[in-house]
């Protein structure tokens, strides 16, 4: 219990003193995860909408695969990306293993199925008559898709939040492909693991609390966007 208070006190101290190392770690966490979420949003929402709106043989199989992807352990995604990026691997020539870019790639692999799976459900959940109605009013296909996305705004924002939450809190892949390199690829989660390994439980707890605050900030922002009243 005492440790918990120590952790809160340490977190407060690190935040108040604007500890440079902690700030840069926090910023990197935000950058990497925001970018991975952004890319997964593009792939996930568009891909999910395409899957939801089209009819093709094997659709159930595809949706099942996407839904399974939502549960892939980050460490497995990390292992896969590591093998791809190894010097001896297919993308070895780019030498991006142990860089922030590698973490973005791995986190995109983790977040995309999350965003896509929820997007499929969100679009499929719209009343089928809505599509016909929009088209009957003379909208083009592109306009129809846009209106559907707006209509499914609430669950789609939830999909993005799930994606961001999934990657900002993930440690296995970031550790594996980033390497937790000081001042370069160390993010909040890998720093937390390292500090607990070092027995600095108060610092570890403090980093965990900072992660929570960061996560709250981002989700608050997204929630504000989500809950905004659309002029009718």
């Amino acid at each position: 219990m005492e440790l918990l208070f120590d952790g809160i006190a340490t977190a407060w101290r690190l935040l108040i003193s604007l500890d440079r190392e902690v700030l840069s770690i926090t910023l990197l966490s935000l950058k990497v995860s925001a970018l991975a979420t952004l890319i997964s949003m593009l792939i996930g929402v568009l891909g999910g909408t395409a899957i939801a709106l089209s009819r093709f043989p094997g659709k159930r199989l595809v949706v099942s695969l996407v839904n399974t992807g939502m549960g892939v352990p980050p460490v497995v995604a990390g292992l896969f990306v590591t093998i791809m990026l190894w010097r001896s691997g297919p993308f070895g020539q780019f030498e991006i293993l142990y860089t922030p870019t590698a973490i973005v790639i791995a986190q995109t692999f983790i977040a995309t199925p999350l965003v896509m799976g929820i997007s499929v459900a969100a679009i499929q959940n719209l009343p089928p008559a809505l599509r016909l109605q929009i088209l009957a009013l003379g909208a083009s296909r592109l306009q129809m898709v846009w209106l559907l996305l707006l209509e499914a705004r609430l669950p789609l924002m939830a999909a993005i939040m799930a994606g961001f939450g999934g990657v900002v809190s993930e440690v296995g892949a970031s550790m594996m492909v980033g390497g937790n390199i000081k001042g370069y690829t160390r993010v909040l989660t890998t720093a937390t693991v390292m500090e607990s390994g070092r027995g600095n439980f108060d610092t570890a707890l403090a980093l965990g609390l900072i992660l929570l605050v960061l996560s709250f900030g981002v989700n608050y922002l997204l929630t504000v966007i989500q809950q905004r009243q659309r002029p009718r």
Partner: protein
Amino acid sequence: MVAALLALLLTVPAVAAPRPVILATTTSIQDAGLLDLLIPLFERQSGYRVKTVAVGSGQAIVMGRRGEADLLLAHAPRDEQEFMTKGFGSRRRPVMQNDFVLVGPPGDPAQVRGQPITEALQRISRTQALFLSRSDHSGTHTKELELWQKAALSPEGRRWYQETGMGMGQTLSIASEKKGYTLTDRGTWLALRKNLALEILVQGDAGLINSYHAIEVNPALSPRINAAGARVLADFLVSGQAQELIRNFGVSRYGLPLFVPAGAAAPLRMRK
């Protein structure tokens, strides 16, 4: 918002001009904090960027064999020798030493306190006292297996011999919670002991020396190996300046040094 995020992307640090050196090392050195002292200094002096990847010695050696790392800093002498004889490494130099200790519950149910390590392990086996093994192919695990072998015992699979598969910190915590014995390097022990209900029971045995070597990976393994950078970094680690930093490392925090530099005139003096 998209523009802001793209701006964030562009500020992600770019790779410095000389090719970075990938240093695969053991978690024990990173956990002790030694690399946080040495590596930034090296980067400032040499202009090289070092990508330090802290893994177990076993994984570090595998990374070396695959040509995925340029320099290894490991503490598994037997595996390292095999690595060298098979031609995976081009040069291996001693960097520093410390020692392993056997820790266990203060009650010491197997009565191992002060015994030589071989006798201590035999007593643990005889009394079937709980022993926690890392079982993660780390340098510490390799050492532990070597010690069991010397004691003519093969404890794998016995009920009192539990394999955690975890790092040193977690294994110590488990040993503390379950009142078991375990082998640890002294550095991790010093860093974590304030949270542990364990005591050092066996130390100072010649069989418990823990030596760290820097191994340059043979550039013939892969055209992407940064042999020049690895050589400069290894030269730095054995240089007088780095050796002096190693000698004094930990004194202010733990009251005693964690490592003895390999360049020291006197051989390893066991601390009591």
